[in-house]
């Protein structure tokens, strides 16, 4: 028996798991409907796929939510996992699930997939016969991903960097790399049986003034870590920056460089897709304004040429949305996409050149780290600040990079810390900003820049 299979046997031997039958799961994936695979839809769709967010604790409510989505003409169903499961606390999840079932009050902020188990969940997934995307935030997602794939969920979000740096203060990053390596290998192995399992990285990160260069570098690195384990379908992603031009430039550069680096490591045969997140920062309380913002995000996603868009709702500012509000965004977004025709092509060569140079310089510094494997190089680069994510709560993050918006609301780097932004690019970024102000005014500008959509 291989080491991986030994580890898998240990992972599924958990008191909250009702006997895991690997042979049966293998047969299921092999014969599963192509419609369940987002990779199949990416190959054949002639439009941007629309996917909302959403997860409820009980099977009944999740089923009802999915029904609403399907009636709103959804392309990809979400399954958002509760916070206890994300921290591997299946015992609390189990108790809260029982309370939710008995009292008809939601005691969890998502669907506790491990507690429901794959036999139950598979009934729901195969009933709707739509691709499902797993949304979580789990550093150690090994059991969760085994359960998800066994349930028929073939689009797996996350990664060791993007699910750690925005969400955790002190979960050990080196462990996260190893846990995600397991996930990549399991996804790669299942991909040989039918259509490929798609992996998706979480580009929004902290969604707080993250400059495109940092977003793209992290997207590319998680993509490479996934492809080198044998994954054949991968989605890079980013969220609306606040400047339409910066979004278009980011989309162009990430597409170009994803292809370039995939080929560099001999994985040019993998299919790479682009996912765009509607505005991930603070939303306006006014629900009509929120709808305008959502609609504008859809227009920008079309300009960017995204393959999938992930939606927000008019209730974003006030908490977890109702299924009605959630389905409404899906219908509205589909409508906007249908009537958006004859879009112009916009290319900003100067901005693309600057961003490309920045990304390549950071990537080169990562590859030049003396460690022997890619994940160790990436780990070291985060530790020594070559990669620095603004507003990450994690203790390993350097927090030396400072960004503000310029007059056109582009996010600009005004302090680079240890990030090897080439001098020419750094001078360009700074030249767009008014740096004559004192730090107190700059802090006030940052507060304003974070809340631009309010």
């Amino acid at each position, binding site marked *: 028996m291989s080491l991986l299979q030994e580890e898998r046997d240990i992972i599924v031997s958990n008191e909250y798991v009702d006997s895991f039958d690997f042979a049966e799961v293998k047969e299921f994936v092999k014969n599963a409907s192509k419609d369940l695979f987002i990779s199949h839809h990416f190959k054949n769709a002639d439009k941007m796929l629309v996917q909302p967010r959403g997860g409820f604790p009980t099977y009944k409510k999740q089923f009802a939510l999915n029904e609403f989505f399907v009636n709103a003409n959804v392309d990809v169903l979400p399954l958002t996992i509760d916070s206890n499961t994300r921290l591997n606390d299946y015992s609390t999840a189990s108790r809260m699930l029982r309370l939710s079932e008995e009292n008809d009050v939601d005691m969890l902020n998502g669907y506790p997939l491990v507690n429901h188990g794959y036999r139950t969940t598979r009934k729901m997934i195969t009933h709707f016969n739509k691709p499902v995307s797993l949304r979580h935030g789990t550093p150690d997602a090994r059991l969760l991903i085994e359960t998800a794939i066994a349930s028929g969920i073939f689009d797996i979000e996350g990664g060791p960097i993007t699910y750690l740096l925005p*969400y955790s*203060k*002190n979960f050990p990053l080196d462990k996260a790399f190893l846990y995600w390596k397991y996930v990549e290998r399991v996804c790669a192995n299942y991909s040989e049986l039918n259509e490929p399992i798609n992996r998706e990285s979480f580009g929004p990160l*902290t969604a*707080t003034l993250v400059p495109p260069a940092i977003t793209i570098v992290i997207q590319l690195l998680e993509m490479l870590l996934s492809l080198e384990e044998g994954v054949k379908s991968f989605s890079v992603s980013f969220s609306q920056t606040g400047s339409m031009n910066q979004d278009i430039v980011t989309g162009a550069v990430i597409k170009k460089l994803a292809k370039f680096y995939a080929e560099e490591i001999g994985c040019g045969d993998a299919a790479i897709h682009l996912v765009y997140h509607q505005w991930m920062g603070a939303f306006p309380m006014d629900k009509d304004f929120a709808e305008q913002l959502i609609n504008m995000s859809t227009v920008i996603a079309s300009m960017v040429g995204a393959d999938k868009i992930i939606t927000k709702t008019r209730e974003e500012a006030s908490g977890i949305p109702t299924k009605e509000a959630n389905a409404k965004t899906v219908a509205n977004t589909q409508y906007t996409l249908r009537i958006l025709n004859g879009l112009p092509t916009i290319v900003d060569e100067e901005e693309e050149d600057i961003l490309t140079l920045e990304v390549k310089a950071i990537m080169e510094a990562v590859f030049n780290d003396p460690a022997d494997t890619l994940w160790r190089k990436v780990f070291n680069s985060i530790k020594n600040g070559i990669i620095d994510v*603004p*507003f*990450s*709560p994690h*203790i390993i993050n350097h*927090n030396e990079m*400072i960004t503000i918006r310029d007059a056109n609301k582009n996010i600009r780097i005004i302090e680079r810390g240890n990030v090897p932004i080439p001098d020419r690019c750094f001078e360009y970024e700074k030249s767009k900003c008014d740096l004559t102000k*004192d*730090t*107190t005014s700059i*802090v*006030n500008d*940052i*507060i304003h820049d*974070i809340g631009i959509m309010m």
Partner: protein
Amino acid sequence: MLGNNAIMKVVTGVVGNDIHVVANRLIDLSLRARGFEVFNLGVNTYLEEFFDAVVETGAEVLLISSLNGEAEGWAREVKTLKAKYKHLDNLILMIGGNLVVGTGKAEDIVPRFKNYGFDLVCHQVDLNTGLDMLEDFIEERNSQ
């Protein structure tokens, strides 16, 4: 400003199971801009960690922040815990942010938190106003 005084040290961080990091980073930046030496413990910090850091760094100011509304549960423990440490009598204790769950009036909240042992209490006060209050407090104390 601090005049001719030596550089003052501040320990800061977000108390309890609170992961809201944005204001924490901005407090850090602003304190540095005002000439303080900052020891930022980040989000998700427990009271013991704050006091340990004050002892370790010899800080004159402890600035605790909180956004998720759970500060009061932690604030109640401050006096008891501080009493367990030696040489903290001159420590300036400040708390700021969104200090209660739901809505509350500053005129009720401020005296309550002062009673818990805080010298300065800023409930939903703008960052720079709060830091001005801190500098005024330090100046007043130094002139005594």
